[in-house]
């Protein structure tokens, strides 16, 4: 019963999105307002359909309805309800259903909000979004049916992937990421609409600004959440392995960030039309490519699913989206070639443009590294690996250059900067940077990457702080306000700029944390009998005993746990374990992490001998790791600050007067 409702909802969703797409195209050409309304209602209806579908799946999961194949594969009678609910997005078909919910949600929100504005653009925006959503409903109707049934119905299901059950954070990471992915279709839709209607002035960029920043923020938080999960849960002691699925999330993030910056230039100075359109198309196509890579099985990854019929569908979608958008772009090339160009060779504009070159360089590098094994296999049949060493060597210099630019850019004025302005703005920060690096060397820090990043961060950070202080001081003086009030008032009246400062400063914090935690981390592998002690960093680790017992929360899981006491900058006891889940061949590591603001003590169990109680532990001391997560959260807060609407009087919507009635009676004369 419930599965049938779910399946029906998917079919209805497909019908509604197809109708909406057609209706919007017709509305665009005829200008019939009723078609517009009807199409918009269809989009909202598709959101309701997706919601019903998700609800049906969640009910099936909670009631352990093993007649549904998805439930049989991802759920068991012993699965706790919370895990059951988040299993909605745990595996392939359910995740597409969840994706459809969010995508239709964005579309409905956008189309409802702008129902009376931007009339030339909106029908095409609606048509694009409806077409994209129709694709996802189509995938759920044919190759990836979440409500496919199995007969005969099994008495017990497989249970969720062991990795999911280990940590409640699984609840947050995919939704954040998906909100980002699905939201990035909105700027794309506006770009397409602008290209189709030839309204290529800066209007669409202005509208799209918020609608890019919001999904960008979610994507950023989702990526950081993924890194946090990898660190806390997977047990290898790191947070970024350049796995294809990680790269898949990074690629659209890179182009979206580039777009946000070049859109700022274009909005302010005009021009860059080809570039901004290309960026917004690239971002959307990359969200599809990322999803394809992790779901098609063509590239081996931690996340990948075995090859299924869904792969070819996604590939077709990618090629159609890319081919269609490119064709449109090339077609409108004459209209795009106009517009002003940025001034001065050394100016904020050129800094922003260099920023774009670097971000695109990063995008190319990551894409190249991810696809190279595929290319080599296709041409020569050999298998090669492109792993962390290559990615780190290639991307770190570009990241450092971007860090440098991040400090310089906002300090340069729009238009031309003179060499003397540059000199006066950068002398003090440069001096500070040298001073900090020298002090770090003096206290014994030798590791080059950490030293370099610390110095660079000081330069960049002091440039930014100096900007904020100068502005606040000027305001405080002129309005007789205290410094804090002045800063706050200034910030809330210039949310974009100060939100930008906040985000950049947070990125700095993350950069320093990443550099120091990778440069100064220490680790060792030790084998300890009960009672033996090992030292690492400033810590003494003592192995107390080995315990093997079923989990209290799920008796099917056997946990082999080393209980350990530690003393040093932090002291206490911890348990680090390997868990044997019945549906997983490898044991799942459950590392123990003791976090302080200065460093993390990280202990993983590698092997154990039950007879003697001896354990092999991998010990890490990772400095400053917590600041990566703090920095990530701060980026979210900073972006939120920038997105929050400014209080600049009430917004008044002025309706264009309706067309005058045909007959006009003139009294009198």
């Amino acid at each position, binding site marked *: 019963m419930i599965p049938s409702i779910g399946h029906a909802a998917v079919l209805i969703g497909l019908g509604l999105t197809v109708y909406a797409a057609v209706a919007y195209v017709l509305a665009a050409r005829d200008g019939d307002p009723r078609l517009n309304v009807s199409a918009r209602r269809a989009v909202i209806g598709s959101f309701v359909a997706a919601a019903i579908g998700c609800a049906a799946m969640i009910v099936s999961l909670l009631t352990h309805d093993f007649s549904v194949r998805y439930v049989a594969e991802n759920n068991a009678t012993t699965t706790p309800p919370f895990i059951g609910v988040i299993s909605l997005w745990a595996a392939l078909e359910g995740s597409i259903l969840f994706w459809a919910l969010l995508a239709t949600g964005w579309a409905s929100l956008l189309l409802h909000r702008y129902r009376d504005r931007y009339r030339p653009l909106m029908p095409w925006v609606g048509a694009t979004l409806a077409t994209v959503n129709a694709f996802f409903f189509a995938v759920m109707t044919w190759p990836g049916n979440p409500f496919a049934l199995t007969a005969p119905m099994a008495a017990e299901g497989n249970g969720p992937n062991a990795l999911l059950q280990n940590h409640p954070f699984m609840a947050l990471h995919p939704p954040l990421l998906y909100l980002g992915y699905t939201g990035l279709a909105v700027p794309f839709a506006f770009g397409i609409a602008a290209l189709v209607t030839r309204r290529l002035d800066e209007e669409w960029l202005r509208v799209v600004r918020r609608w890019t920043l919001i999904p960008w923020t979610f994507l950023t938080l989702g990526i950081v959440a993924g890194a946090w999960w990898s660190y806390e849960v997977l047990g290898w002691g790191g947070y970024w392995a350049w796995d*294809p699925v990680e790269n898949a999330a990074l690629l659209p993030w890179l182009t979206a960030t580039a777009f946000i910056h070049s859109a700022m230039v274009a909005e302010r100075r005009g021009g860059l039309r080809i570039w901004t359109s290309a960026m917004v198309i690239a971002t959307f196509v990359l969200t599809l490519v990322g999803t394809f890579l992790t779901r098609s099985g063509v590239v*081996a990854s931690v996340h990948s699913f075995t090859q299924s019929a869904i792969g070819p569908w996604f590939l077709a979608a990618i090629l159609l989206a890319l081919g269609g958008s490119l064709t449109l772009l090339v077609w409108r090339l004459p209209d795009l070639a106009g517009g002003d160009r940025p001034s001065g060779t050394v100016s904020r504009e*050129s800094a922003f443009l260099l920023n774009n*070159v*670097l971000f695109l360089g990063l995008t190319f590098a990551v894409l190249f590294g991810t696809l190279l094994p595929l290319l080599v296999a296709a041409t020569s049949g050999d298998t090669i690996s492109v792993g962390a060493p*290559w990615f780190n060597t290639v991307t770190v210099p570009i990241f450092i250059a971007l860090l440098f630019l991040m400090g310089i850019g906002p300090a340069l004025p729009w238009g031309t900067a003179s060499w003397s302005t540059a000199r006066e703005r950068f002398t003090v920060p440069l001096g500070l940077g040298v001073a900090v690096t020298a002090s770090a060397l003096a206290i014994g820090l030798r590791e080059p990457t950490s030293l370099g990043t610390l110095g660079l961060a000081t330069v960049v950070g002091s440039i930014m702080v100096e900007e904020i202080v100068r502005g606040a001081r000027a305001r405080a003086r002129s309005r007789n306000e205290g410094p804090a009030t002045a800063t706050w008032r200034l910030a809330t009246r210039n949310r974009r700029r100060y939100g930008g400062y906040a985000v950049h400063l947070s990125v700095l914090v993350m950069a320093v944390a990443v550099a120091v935690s990778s440069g100064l981390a220490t680790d060792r592998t030790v084998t300890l009998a009960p009672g033996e002690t090992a030292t690492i960093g400033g810590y003494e680790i003592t192995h107390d005993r080995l315990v093997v017992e079923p989990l209290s929360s799920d008796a099917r899981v056997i946990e082999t746990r080393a209980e350990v006491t530690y003393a040093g900058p932090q002291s206490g006891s911890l348990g680090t374990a390997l868990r044997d889940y019945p549906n997983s061949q490898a044991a799942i590591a459950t590392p123990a992490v003791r976090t302080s603001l200065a460093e993390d003590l990280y202990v993983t169990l590698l092997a154990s001998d039950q007879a003697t109680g001896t354990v092999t532990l991998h010990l890490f001391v990772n400095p400053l790791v917590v600041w990566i997560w703090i920095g990530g959260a701060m980026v979210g807060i900073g972006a939120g600050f920038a997105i929050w609407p400014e209080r600049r009087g009430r917004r008044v919507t002025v309706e264009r007067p309706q067309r005058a009635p045909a007959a006009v009676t003139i009294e009198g004369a």
Partner: protein
Amino acid sequence: MRTWLPALAVGCVLALIALGSVLVLQPGSEPTAARTDALARELRCPDCQGLSVADSPTASAQEIRRQIDELVTGGATDDEVRAHFVARYGEWILLAPTAPLVWVIPFAVVVAGAGALGAWLVSRRRPLHGSPVRPSPEERRRLREEADVLDA
């Protein structure tokens, strides 16, 4: 001449940073334990997804680490250790590809992009038509004075 000097300076600084970080990240010749660790970070764990032998908890990764240690203490060079495992697994076991072209291509793309950007910015500044007006020495002096007043 003066217009592209700042761009050149910025470019040099960026290039130096890039060069510095690349050099910093190259493994050098170090004591045994450090060499074993460095090699372990270069070799791929056979039954994981993309993790290095240094990071992986699996039994095969631990055995490979043991073998690396044996080879290194036995006097093998870094290249000989890598060749030992490539003979068994193929190039796949190396986490970083050996072909130098693969390392150069991303940097070449960035440099080409930056170069194209620079050329585009600079080309824009050339006057479009007519010959530039040449100020007389008197006018030039006045221009300088006015500019100094503004910059102060």
